[in-house]
């Protein structure tokens, strides 16, 4: 608007942040996520790994929540809160790494498919179709079960199953942006293809990529938990939310807290990412907002 120029100058990112700030739910998500990350970062400060996370005690088995153990203890007498806090140190980095990989690889494939020739597009997208035809959780399960359970394999499996959706989204974003008039304008002033992709196309398809990434991190956390739940997770005694749930479930009736809290932790994390993702979607694309 004409008079806007009198106001403080704002970059695009600042404008997004300003819109995001208005969205109470998104901020709630951000706060929860920040807290989770904070506790994950400083987990060792709150709960010593050796003495609180993996130290067992037959005497402390399955104690209900109390002043000492806020969320109770598990089947080998470890503090559940400590394990949940330390569990975030697994779930979050793994999720972030998988999505980083998927974003880069999928984004690159998508960009090549979208900007490249029809044949390249066809080849890439048909391969993606094949992967998309297998439910992603099954693909992860198959890969992990086949490769063996380890952190690396889990990262690999979840990354692979996340690549096709990214490729698809980036491709369609590139395809739309490719036809924008400002791309033509850039070509008219003699910009090279490289410059067009880097300076004009990519910055403009960041919005769907960021949104997809945020929501995929949520999906990835769920996938990690799911894999652990069916016994394909990270090896013990590493605290991992899904495996806590999985081992806890046989004691579930006698000791509800062993399952309830890890599940809540997963849910809260996913919830915060979803809130943030929704908020980012609205903030990045004001059109979608009413």
């Amino acid at each position, binding site marked *: *608007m*004409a*008079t806007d120029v009198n106001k403080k100058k704002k970059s695009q990112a600042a404008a997004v942040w300003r819109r995001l700030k*208005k969205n109470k739910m998104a901020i709630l998500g951000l706060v929860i996520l920040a807290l989770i990350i904070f506790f994950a970062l400083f987990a060792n400060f709150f709960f010593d790994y050796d003495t609180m996370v993996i130290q067992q005690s037959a005497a402390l088995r399955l104690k209900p929540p109390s002043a000492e153990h806020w969320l109770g203890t598990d089947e080998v007498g470890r503090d559940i809160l400590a394990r949940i806090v330390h569990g975030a140190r697994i779930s979050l980095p793994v999720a972030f790494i998988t999505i980083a990989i998927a974003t880069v690889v999928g984004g690159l494939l998508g960009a090549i498919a979208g900007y490249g020739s029809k044949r390249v597009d066809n080849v890439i997208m048909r391969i993606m179709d094949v992967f998309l035809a297998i439910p992603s959780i099954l693909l992860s399960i198959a890969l992990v079960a086949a490769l063996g359970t380890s952190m690396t394999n889990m990262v690999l499996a979840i990354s692979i199953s996340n690549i096709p959706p990214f490729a698809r989204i980036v491709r369609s974003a590139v395809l739309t942006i490719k036809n924008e008039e400002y791309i033509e304008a850039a070509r008219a002033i003699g910009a090279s293809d490289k410059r067009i992709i880097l300076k004009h196309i990519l910055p403009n398809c960041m919005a769907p990529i960021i949104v997809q990434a945020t929501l995929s991190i949520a999906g990835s956390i769920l996938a990690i938990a799911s894999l652990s739940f069916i016994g394909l997770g990270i090896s013990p005694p590493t605290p991992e939310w899904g495996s806590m749930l999985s081992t806890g479930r046989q004691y579930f009736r006698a000791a509800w807290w062993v399952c309830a809290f890890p599940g809540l932790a997963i849910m809260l994390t996913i919830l915060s990412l979803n809130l943030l993702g929704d908020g980012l979607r609205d903030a990045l694309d004001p059109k979608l*907002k*009413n």
Partner: protein
Amino acid sequence: MDDKKKLETAAPEGSAPYAQAPDTLLDIRDLRVEYHTDEDVVYAVNGLDLTIGKGESLGLVGETGAGKTTTALSVLRLIADPPGKIVDGEIWFEGENMLRAKPGRLREIRGSKISVIFQDPMTSLNPVYSVGDQIAEVIHQHEKCSREEGRKKAGDMLEMVGIPRARYDEYPHQFSGGMKQRVVIAMSIACSPELILADEPTTALDVTIQAQVLELMSELKEKLRTSLLLITHDLGVVAQVCDRVAIMYAGEIVESGTIAEVFDHPHHPYTIGLFGSIPSLDETAEKLKPIRGQMPDPTVLPEGCAFAPRCPYAVETCRAQRVEMTSAGGTHLVRCLAHQGVFQAPELMEEVRHGR
């Protein structure tokens, strides 16, 4: 809710500041509409007065964002709420205040007594139903008739606007822009309304098609004797189709009168600027005489005359006080202090006298 009382006690003939024809069909008084967005309040319409007589066609002209569409939508209370809100005013139609009508009554009026033609024919038809059915729908809504009768009547309407009946079952995407707009027109006249609100009905169309559609509308107007509120920003269109014209700026009418009155001797500096901005086909000017500056930000409207910041003749007084409409002879009304003699603007007067 103190305006409630006002609305109830106000008589339809009320005390408008201007003479009002006895056969007034639509009378809008002091209409105020706001849009409340997350960040700001947009003052879209600010105390707008407007009348349309029976069988009369009025052109409402103004630039983007002047509040034209908002005005038209307010008549049928079609403003999206949220974010839109009609905060004040009265809209009298055949002795009824539309702003106080019950939802049921409103629905009876919509489409049968007052109908609308929207700006963009590409989007104002529902893409998933056949055009014929969409016309028949409005007929079934307001008239008791069988399926066959409805179908027949809708077919008649199509033919009336020059589309063969055979295309009844086709879908909007199979029609060109001009044809779609004709379908919308057919829909709007299907129940023989007394008033048609046409919101930029030809802006989205090509010149030759635009001419066809305008011609069709003029024809229908003659034939059906309906009143027409034609919204546009094209002064040419108004000149060709309308009896009277009202110039709108920043949510209010700044000048109104018959075509001859306004077009031959525009009074308001804004109107004069508008005429100066359009290249003429008749004379070859080296330069145009555009109005400087832009439309005001509708969230922070100027205190006094909204046009003052852009007006070459404006003086301090203009920025200080709200200006009322005053007569400039005949039915010609203008909202300008210079014309009320509050201050002297000899160059303006010269321009006015010179006319076009």
